[in-house]
């Protein structure tokens, strides 16, 4: 193994330019793929954070009397996923509206009667604070006979989720394309190295070298290139991230809780990068180094 490693390192030095091109290509591919991963991770975190603030407003039918309120509240609390239920009378709602519309409050003064309905403000437990679950809870609440309508800001959440899904899809496609490009580049490099060393390989075979002895260093070389490409890609992303994070105010003031990829994630990416190196080499050796 030490001999293979020694020969692989020597080959990288001997074919410096080709190796550098391979490492840079892998690094660029990893940079782009992990930049997407970083975006998705943080976008997901932001959505979860926003999702935590989502509350369902359940508006009561006008004919519902006060004495029915404890019963309705109990029914709502009986639905799985509900954390808290607060009654907001139409008077209270009107007062809040006036406070929110300080400058335009004169418009409200001209109203003959309070147009707002009585409502329940419903908060949701943390594990249920995501799109589908919120929608399920809202549907259950809406199906209660005393409830006229429910609102939970679903439209903007849905729109954002749709855009996010579109980006995720684009990310997968880009990841796939860059993965294939990196494999192709590694395979081409190994092919060129095999071509330049075909005489040496022939001599090795003639002196009794096994296929393992001939192929081993190529695999080690590719895995080294994959690892270096992966580390450089992640390092460039990390430096860029730090530079942006230290210059953008909303990051500094904690408006968004933006964080870098987890160690498990970037170790995974480096492992993936090693796999790219190995696969490129495997394809090339299979095609061009027939015994």
């Amino acid at each position: 193994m030490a001999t293979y490693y020694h020969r692989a390192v020597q080959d990288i030095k001997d074919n410096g330019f080709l190796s550098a091109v391979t490492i840079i290509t892998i690094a660029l591919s990893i940079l782009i793929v992990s930049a997407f991963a970083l975006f998705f991770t943080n976008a997901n975190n932001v959505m979860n954070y926003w999702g935590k603030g989502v509350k369902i407003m359940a508006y009561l039918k006008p004919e519902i009397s006060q004495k029915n309120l404890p019963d309705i509240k109990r029914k709502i609390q009986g639905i799985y996923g509900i954390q808290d239920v607060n009654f907001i009378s139409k008077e209270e709602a009107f007062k809040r509206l006036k406070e929110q519309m300080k400058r335009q409050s004169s418009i409200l003064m001209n109203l003959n009667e309070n147009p707002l309905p009585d409502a329940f403000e419903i908060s949701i437990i943390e594990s249920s604070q995501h799109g589908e679950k919120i929608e399920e809870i809202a549907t259950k609440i809406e199906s209660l006979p005393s409830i006229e309508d429910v609102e939970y800001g679903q439209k903007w959440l849905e729109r954002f989720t749709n855009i996010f899904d579109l980006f995720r899809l684009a990310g997968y496609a880009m990841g796939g394309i860059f993965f294939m490009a990196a494999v192709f580049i590694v395979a081409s490099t190994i092919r060129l190295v095999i071509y330049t060393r075909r005489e040496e390989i022939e001599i090795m075979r003639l002196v009794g070298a096994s296929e393992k002895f001939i192929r081993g260093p190529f695999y080690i070389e590719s895995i080294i290139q994959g690892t270096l490409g992966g580390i450089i890609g992640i390092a460039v992303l990390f430096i860029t991230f730090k530079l942006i994070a230290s210059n953008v105010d909303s990051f500094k003031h904690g408006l968004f809780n933006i964080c870098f990829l987890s160690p498990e994630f970037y170790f995974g990416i480096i492992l993936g990068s090693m796999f790219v190196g190995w696969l490129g080499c495997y394809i090339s050796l299979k095609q061009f180094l027939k015994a």
Partner: protein
Amino acid sequence: MIEGKDKSSIIQMFHVHKYYGSKKALVDISLNISKNDFLFISGPSGAGKSTLLKLIYLGEPVSEGQVLVDGMNLSRISRKRIPLLRRKFGIIFQDYKLISTKTVFDNVALVLEASGKKRKFIEKKVRSVLRTVGIEQRINALPPSLSGGEQQRVAVARAVVGVPKIILADEPTGSLDSDSADIILNLLKGFHTQGGTVIVATHDKELIRKAGGRILYLKQGRLLGPTPI
């Protein structure tokens, strides 16, 4: 009839034919080479001497017939066992076949690395062999910077370093002056004295006369048996 049949055979050929397309390179060759033989395969250029050696180390497959080397039937040998077969040989090629980008040391060490020997052992053994062939002072030189005689000595060093059972030499003195040819011949004789089998393909009558081994004569791909020089 099998030429020189013996109980201690190391190489046997049975009705071997080799064709390149419609061209017959070797026709119905049957021979037996014993352990510790010093055998010359002689004949004019194009007689099939190099082809015969290639069939022995499986540089080429036979078209018909069978070749046995140290108990291995080359017609049935699996691809995985070819390196094991080749480690039985030390091959000296007509064009030396040295790796031009590797030093003299690395060229010779390759054989031991390929058979999985340890670095320390390789270091010691290669130096010792290079000393024996008288080229230790050029240990770090690249082959293109060496003279023909020096390159041939490196080739001999590479052939003997793995302590093979058989040395196959294809025109080992072809392009050398008589002093260099003598050095190579002495190295081959030394290997033979230590119990090795040597097979030399050559049309160099002077070399055959000096060595005094068994001679087989090939003409137009046919084995004509021993012939006086």
